[in-house]
């Protein structure tokens, strides 16, 4: 049983390890992603970690052409947009994440409802190295 505290900090450490983790209410069994401290259904206060399979479908998306500074650093911009979206996991919860392996320059080619699966991308070097979660067409 995973004993790390339920928190966004723990959640991000799991992502670094290539694990997509949610929290599960010990009272009513409801699964949440991102993890929640408290159950909003039964107001239970006992949560445990629950590993998610990382499979789901694309619920909605956008392709960003005017990019924030931290994405410009990765080389994105007006001529090189990226896709980001909302995925509904097979377990029910939703994930907000970058969508890769699609043609962000042709946003209308991207299909809502398409099956996707999680990938964990390692970027940067040295102290700046980090892992981010993305989804790709399954």
């Amino acid at each position, binding site marked *: 049983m995973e004993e790390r505290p339920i928190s966004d900090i723990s959640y991000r450490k799991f992502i670094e390890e290539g694990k997509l983790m949610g929290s599960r209410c010990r009272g009513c069994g409801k699964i949440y992603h*991102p993890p929640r401290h408290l159950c909003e259904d039964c107001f239970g206060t006992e949560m445990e970690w629950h590993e998610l399979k990382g499979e789901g479908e694309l619920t909605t998306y*956008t392709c960003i052409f*005017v*990019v924030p*500074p931290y994405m410009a650093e990765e080389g994105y911009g007006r001529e090189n947009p990226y896709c980001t979206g909302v995925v509904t996991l097979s377990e029910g919860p*939703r994930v907000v994440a970058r969508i890769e392996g699609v043609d962000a320059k042709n946003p209308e080619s991207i299909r809502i409802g398409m099956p996707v699966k999680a990938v964990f991308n390692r970027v940067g070097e040295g102290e700046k190295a980090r892992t981010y979660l993305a989804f790709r067409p399954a």
Partner: protein
Amino acid sequence: MAGKRKIGRGVAIVGAGMSRFGMFQDKDSKDLFAEAFRELLESVDKGLDPRDIQAIWIGNFSNDFFVHQAHWGPIIADLTGLAPRAVTRTEGACASSTLAVRDGIMAIASGMYDIVLAGGVEEMSKRTTEEVTEGLALATSPYEGAAGFTFPGVFGALANAYFHKYGASREHLMNVTIKSHENAPLNPKGQFRQTIRDLMEARKEKARQKGLPVPDWSDEKEALFDPSFNPPVAWPMHLFDCCPISDGASCVLLVAEELAKSFTDDPIYVVGFGQGSGRGLHACPSFTSFEANRQAAAEAYGMSGLKPEDVQFAEVHDCFSIAELIHIEDLGFFGEGEAYKAVAEGETRREGRMPINTSGGLKCKGHPVGATGVAQMYEVWKQLRGEAGERQIPGRDLYIGATQNLGGTGGTCTFTIFERR
């Protein structure tokens, strides 16, 4: 849940002021608020001794970030000559100043005060577009920024969900923009005062002067489909789907109902108020509705005893074109999935069945975020009193108007209903 909650003591607006909205290198927040307050003082029909104002609420989202100055309450109290009276700053992102009015309403309804100044201010244009984008993104859910979502990006995702669910398209969003720009030239305080056709002609003239090929667009939509005129920001949000970066200020004078007639024969009464909260995209129950809107609307309709069909016109928070469609459905003015058709048929134009954003909306009037909610009320005040000049809704006796204000990406929504008796 929302039920029939009454305010304990009636509240009325008896004065209102608004600065010009725009990008001003030569004006700061104090200058803008002074401009709005000066108009408020002149707007009180039977006169106001400012010394009678007992307390102030001031909405401001993030001047801390935009101009590196926090703690705006005392600055505004000093500016208006009202120090050492109590002043409180409210923050609800782009709904900050509606929250100031809400606190003022509650303070009067409770009997604590009788006469309150409520307003808002924001000074954004001294930062670069990239910095403003970063500043606004501080009001999204923390999970969205990590996934590369921007503010327009969240609304882009909502638009794609709306298109997918109802069969709407970019052309339907353009109808919202074209309608807002039709009202724009009629608002002397607005940031943009040109129709889309005016802007097309200006672009053609510029091309002629530079000896470049002159675009041969046949109508507004052809121009709006041209990425050289209307480039993508966050698909399907394009430049003309997005409101601008703005500076501005606004304020209203709230008084206890029994005092209203001593200030004016024509007060505007607050008859319904509602506020809701919303969650990040990962927890939204729907991508074609804001749960905070539904909560706010249920509260305000419950309090007022009114129904959506009783509201004759409204100012809604069109930070992005898609937001206007979602709001007017959430508030019950149009059925789910019906707003885009109603807008296409002209129902939300000034002459239409349900005029929306006669001010030009955030899109044209401008969106200094902390000032927006009260600026919406300023428009309703003008329209209900028949003082909206060229943009006055024609041919109708107006007595019920409303404002809907959204903060962040739906984290805070308010709905306020006003009545002229």
